């Protein structure tokens, strides 16, 4: 199993989260210079942990295992930190509320059924967006706690802020669209990252 340093871990981690990641996106999510990302791409490619296609990186089948092993090392102290553990306890609840809110954005209740939200009711949409904003705010203390161990986690805060700002500007695809840096995408990546950092499995 190839050994990787922390910078390589950060890059490979983002590539694994995004699956197909251009240099620019990895730079944003790792706070590295694009040149550093490019050089990490080539060393990781040499180690057969990713392949670069047209400037974007894709993880190989080995990437997940290497990341898991190194996470155990890099984040051993996070995994036993009482503050982090207390906040993580609460995460599942916030996560459930987040997913429910995401459904409310996409679908509205009609009697006992749900139909696609056609976004004609501004009052309804405004309430859902407020709720999302609150939930992202509730994630704040946990992100802060992670930042205390690894500064790269602060990029989640920035990415959430940017997505919500777009939403407020009327670009409502930034709520749940899978093809932009939407609140849902950032949340999903954070969740996956959290699981790897703590060495946990996603709940069924």
């Amino acid at each position, binding site marked *: 199993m190839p050994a990787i340093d922390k910078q390589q871990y950060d890059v490979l981690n983002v590539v694994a989260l995004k*699956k197909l990641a251009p240099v620019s996106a990895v730079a944003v999510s790792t706070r590295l210079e694009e040149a550093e990302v490019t050089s990490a791409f080539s060393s990781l490619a040499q180690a057969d942990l990713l392949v670069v296609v047209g400037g974007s990186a894709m993880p190989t089948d080995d990437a997940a295992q290497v990341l898991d092993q190194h996470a155990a090392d890099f984040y051993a102290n996070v995994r036993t930190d009482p503050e982090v553990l207390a906040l993580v306890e609460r995460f599942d609840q916030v996560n459930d509320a987040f997913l429910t809110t*995401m459904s409310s954005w996409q679908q509205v209740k009609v009697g006992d059924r749900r139909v*696609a939200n056609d976004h004609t009711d501004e*009052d309804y949409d405004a*309430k859902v967006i407020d709720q999302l*904003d609150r939930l992202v705010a509730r994630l704040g203390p946990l992100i802060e706690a992670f930042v205390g161990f690894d500064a790269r986690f602060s990029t989640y805060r920035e990415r959430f802020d940017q997505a919500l700002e777009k939403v*407020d500007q009327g670009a409502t695809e930034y709520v749940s669209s*899978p093809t932009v840096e939407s609140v*849902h995408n950032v949340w999903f990546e954070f969740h996956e990252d959290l699981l790897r950092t703590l060495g946990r499995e996603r709940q069924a």
Partner: protein
Amino acid sequence: MSVAQQTVTETFTVRFEDADSQDVGRLGGKGAGLAEMTAHGFPVPPGFVITTAACRHFLDHGVLPPGFDDQVAAQLALLERRTGKSFGAGPEPLLLSVRSGAPVSMPGMMDTILDLGLSRESAVQLAEATHDTRFVADLVRRFHTMYAETVLGALEGPDGVMALLDGFRPDDDAGDAFDRMWAFCRDALEDQVDEPVPTDPRAQLRGAIEAVFGSWNTRRARTYRAHHKISDDVGTAVVVQMMVFGNLGDDSGSGVAFTRDPITGKDELYGEFLISSQGEDVVSGEFTPVPIREAEQSLPGPFADLRKRCAELERRRGDVLDIEFTIERSRLYFLQVRSAKRTAEAAVRIANDMWGSEVVDPLRALSGVSTDHIRQIQRPRFVPDEIEAARGDGRVVTVGIGACPGQVHGALCFDADAAKEQAEQGTAVILARPNTSPADLHGMIAAEGIVTATGGSTSHAAVVARALGTTCVVGCGDLDIDPAGGTLRAGDIVLRAGDQVSLDGTTGELFSGTLPSTGSASVSESFTSLLDRCRRASGATVLARVTLPGQAAEAQAIDSHGMVTALDDVLAAAGRFEALAAALSAGATADTADFAAVESIVAEEFEALLAATAEADMTVRAFDFLADDTHELLDRSLLSARPQLALPLGVPGFVEAQLGGLARAADATGRTAPLGFALRHVTDVGEARELTAAHRRVLARYPKSPVVPGVYATSASAVRVAAELAEEAPVVWLDLKLLMARDWGIPAWLLLTAQPLDDYLRAGRLNGDPRAQLGDGVRSLLESLTAAPGPMPGIRLSMPVADSLVAELYAVGCRTFAADLAEVQPLTLALGRAALAAG
């Protein structure tokens, strides 16, 4: 008048019954709505509005206006007298709901605070009235949490409070319960808030009002206003209203009513009711409410009132409503009235019924149905009998949770990469995964449907599928999907990659095999009837774009008035581009190419399509070497070698060959009805003359040819001479997309997608959206046509139909349209609406 004088004399509060419901600017949307309801005698709980003027003062000066507290106190006294209840005291405690209500709704504004006014004394009294100390403890919990979160900015509710609540019983001592619950909440929230929730009800009210006003300037509200061009000076109103209680015994309760069934649209009161409960209980899912039909047996009086009021309010608003109501000691109160959300099927049925009822005017009746509803309804769906048959035959592989509706079929695929690959080759694919992650996105985008073994209705797969609008079923617990082995097992059934399956995103069923689908033709009587009404209202002619014979049959099934097609589309679909290019490259010069071969290709490929269209109105657009799609598909060297082909009549022989081919196909199918043949990019009468000359030469060879020459105007110059062109070539169409592209200086293909134009518009770089409005240039062009002699040319729409654009086209006098097959029915609705709006 000086500022000081003004603030002394101005009133900042107004009772619902005294307010002018037209004055939305002062009352805000919610306040105006309540004033209107009160004025018309609808049973809304009494209350008052603190106007936007008070908010503006607060924002300007950082404090509430002088005399404000006295005005609020006076309003409270009036409310106490009117209701016989006391704020913060007994014997009948008055509790309030406090809500923000700006003239326009926006995110970032403070939401509702309920049960405000809870003091120890009122809590004890309330426990006595409800004989339920546990309820009062719960009320304290709810109020405390809500106030801490909305006014004081706490992020989390009091930890462990539910465990405390569970310890209370209905007959516990109320004073003690209040003390314990209050202290618990206060201590649990201590770290999160700078100050505790006030115990004095008047301080609670003041805090809530200031919080509403303060929320006007949250970062989010400001951003929203800036981007929606709403002035920061508008301010918000505050609605203060008496809380009513549905849990005061068996003569009380809470419910939700829809004035019609929001699922089917059937004209009958629909909804549910929970006796002796508060509104939160109805939606919590903890208790099971009963249908209104059953509940009304026990409280006939209030429910008779409900029925009467619902009908009256629906008539008045001309819309189906969703009404939250409470019955407090046999007295009915409306808590919230909104336009009811409804399924697409219900929207159509309601619009049709209301139009027919003549109680509501037709334009209002149409307001609840959108072009998207029509698109949803006409999505292909399984033939009902086939579903039954498949169930009967044991072809249901598994039943999961329907996460995104739709009925689709395709080849089973277990891997996102493979799904994408197969979809690109034109195979419909159903992607089946144990679960999905962002890594599967490309496959999810490519798939017709998605199935996952794990996950619930909020899983990654479900959220992404809904964002994509892709049919999706999740949580098929008994599915064992093995992507590596390429198998899917459910009990004894084993399916392999490539096997055909069908998926129902509503029922959650996965079937083996292909379930046949219906076309988009008439799905219900209401649907047919509504579109008929729209057709009659607009008097417009709508033709459908078709390429394949099957589409021609479908176009006739949806009652389109005829069809248009394009020669390049038909040849591309038949895979004849290479043969065509070879024929056009033959010979020494462009004019001596193998036109006989071209004519034969056209004749062969049009026979089936013309046979399917029978004698229906039909126009064929001539081959266009400049069309974006053609450009992509055709070998570019042809145009470099023979650039004459890029001009509409640069190679008359090619035009003649197309005319000849169509004449032969028409002859073979026995068509005698006129068959239009329209050439794009013509701008001059000289070109039109050459076209008719070519047509005459063809007529000499095929005297029975029903072909009528025409043009597709794609530029302002062509539109300006449209009448003269029509004298030569009588079939005249305007290609709106190309006209718009030229006029706005935006490539035509960009008009077909959301991005990057959406971002461009949001950045404020364009003052209008060329996909949704004509713009001055094209509008004045079209207006000039109305003044010109001769019939108005037909409008070819190639973008998804936008209501606003259709309204403009209708208003300038356009009455003939052609649209993509799937857009014909949405366009029919939009034209009906446009005609009604035009009066």
